[in-house]
């Protein structure tokens, strides 16, 4: 059973190809990393998966729903978190969560907020304005917003960007625990190779909008003869190394 099905996805802006004939699937319950340098097409791909951006061509099915025709039914079963978006800073954490509980038609709103407060350690600042929180607290609140509707698919765009190592580790632990408990499908765009190695069962390597390689972290390390994903990433970015040519899948 596939949670995400992407076929021949292309996005062009004039003569610039941001995403070029991208095809992949993500199984239910899997955590897949979307890796690539700046301009590789990660954020563009995620924006298309969310229906924020209309593809130039290609098809996306999220949880069986065609995103071109039926995106709102899919969106009710998904959620998204990105450090580049914020929640209204003057609203308290609880008020923000109530807003999104309504938007996602969550049953028993207050009970759900209590559950999230416990799971993500939000209780102490639930009634504080979101704008007065530390970066780490804001990240936890953003994750709470992303989990408010028990999403079956969770899209995360650089979830630990700009966090200190300790807070980033805390965030990764929360994600691991949540995935283990709820079997949520996660697609994670990141520049943090250690994070991807730790969280992801599969990795999609993008370069200039194209899928250039994919596999589990272990497979990629073996294919490129490297010790960590950062070296694999550099090999692909600079098109060198044992697997750089052999592993490329256009």
């Amino acid at each position, binding site marked *: 059973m596939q949670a995400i099905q992407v076929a021949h996805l292309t996005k062009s*802006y004039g003569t610039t190809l941001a995403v070029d004939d991208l095809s992949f699937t993500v199984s239910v319950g899997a955590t897949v990393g979307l890796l690539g340098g700046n301009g590789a097409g990660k*954020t*563009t791909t995620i*924006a298309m998966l*969310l*229906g*924020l*951006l*209309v593809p130039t061509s290609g098809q996306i099915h999220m949880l069986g729903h065609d995103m071109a025709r039926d995106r*709102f*039914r899919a*969106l*009710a079963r*998904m*959620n*998204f978190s*990105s450090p*580049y*978006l*914020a*929640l*209204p*800073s*003057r*609203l*308290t954490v609880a*008020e923000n969560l*109530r*807003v*999104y*509980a*309504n*938007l*996602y*038609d969550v049953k028993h709103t207050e009970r759900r907020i209590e559950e999230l407060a416990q799971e993500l350690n939000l209780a102490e600042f639930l009634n504080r*304005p979101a704008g007065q929180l530390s970066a780490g607290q804001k990240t936890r609140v953003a994750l709470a*917003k992303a989990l408010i509707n028990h999403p079956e698919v969770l899209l995360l765009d650089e979830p630990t960007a700009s966090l200190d190592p300790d807070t980033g580790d805390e965030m990764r632990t929360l994600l691991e625990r949540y995935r283990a408990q709820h079997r949520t499908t996660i697609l994670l765009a990141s520049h943090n190779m250690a994070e991807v190695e730790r969280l992801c069962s599969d990795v999609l390597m993008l370069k200039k909008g194209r899928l250039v390689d994919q596999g589990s972290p272990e497979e990629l390390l073996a294919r490129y003869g490297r010790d960590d994903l950062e070296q694999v990433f550099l090999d692909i970015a600079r098109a060198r190394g044992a697997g750089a040519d052999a592993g490329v899948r256009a």
Partner: protein
Amino acid sequence: MRGCARRIWGMMYRHLALYRGSWPRLLELAYWPTLQMCIWGFTASFLASRTGSPMALAGGLLLGGVLLWEVALRSQMGFAVSFLEEIWSRNLGHIFVSPLRPPELVAALIIMSMIRMAIGVLPAILLAWALYAFNLFSLGPVLILFFINLMIMGWWVALGVVSLILRHGAGAETLAWSVLFGVTPFSAVYYPVSVLPRVIQPLALALPSSHVFEGMRAMVQTGQIMWGHLAWAFGLNLVWLAAAAWLFAAQFHAARVRGALLSIGE
């Protein structure tokens, strides 16, 4: 509550929670209508004291114009500023990846504009009654029809402004405050359409507001309801609202094609 109603309520709750925690925002809603009322009310009182009863009638027309025009202005700003709040808080991306449909967003913005308009205009109406013995409600039930027409005009103008923001980004946000002021000279708020140069009169008559104010003046002067003007106002509002809705739908789709929904505040 059904899904659709809950999503609309979710957006309304977001704004109501904002106002509950921000008294300067609440104060600002009533500030400009009250200020306008004071300026024009004292001006009318002064002129009436110098020239007698004909000017007192003109003063009444002036105050009626000021108060009713505020209905359109506050409705338009209430709608557009509520949308801008999402851009300022970098929250628009979250909203557009939720199951909230664009028509539901528009419905929430319309209800918020009605609430904001009421908070802004009602104190000014009460002040006009207390300071100048001008009772806008003496116009009778037809006042409701004037209100409805001016609110609808505020909404379609705001929908046009939001469409331009979707097209041109936050750079177009100043239109949220200025665009309806630019229409004021052609809306027959303080003077009849016949005062305008002949070439401009068709433009004025294409605006629902001109028909509302012509109707309001006739009501004050003769006590007669000008149903023709009201019919024109409703008809024109329907046409303009349909055009604005089409523009919004087209610009929303264009923003999704360009990828502008994530970066609209930049």
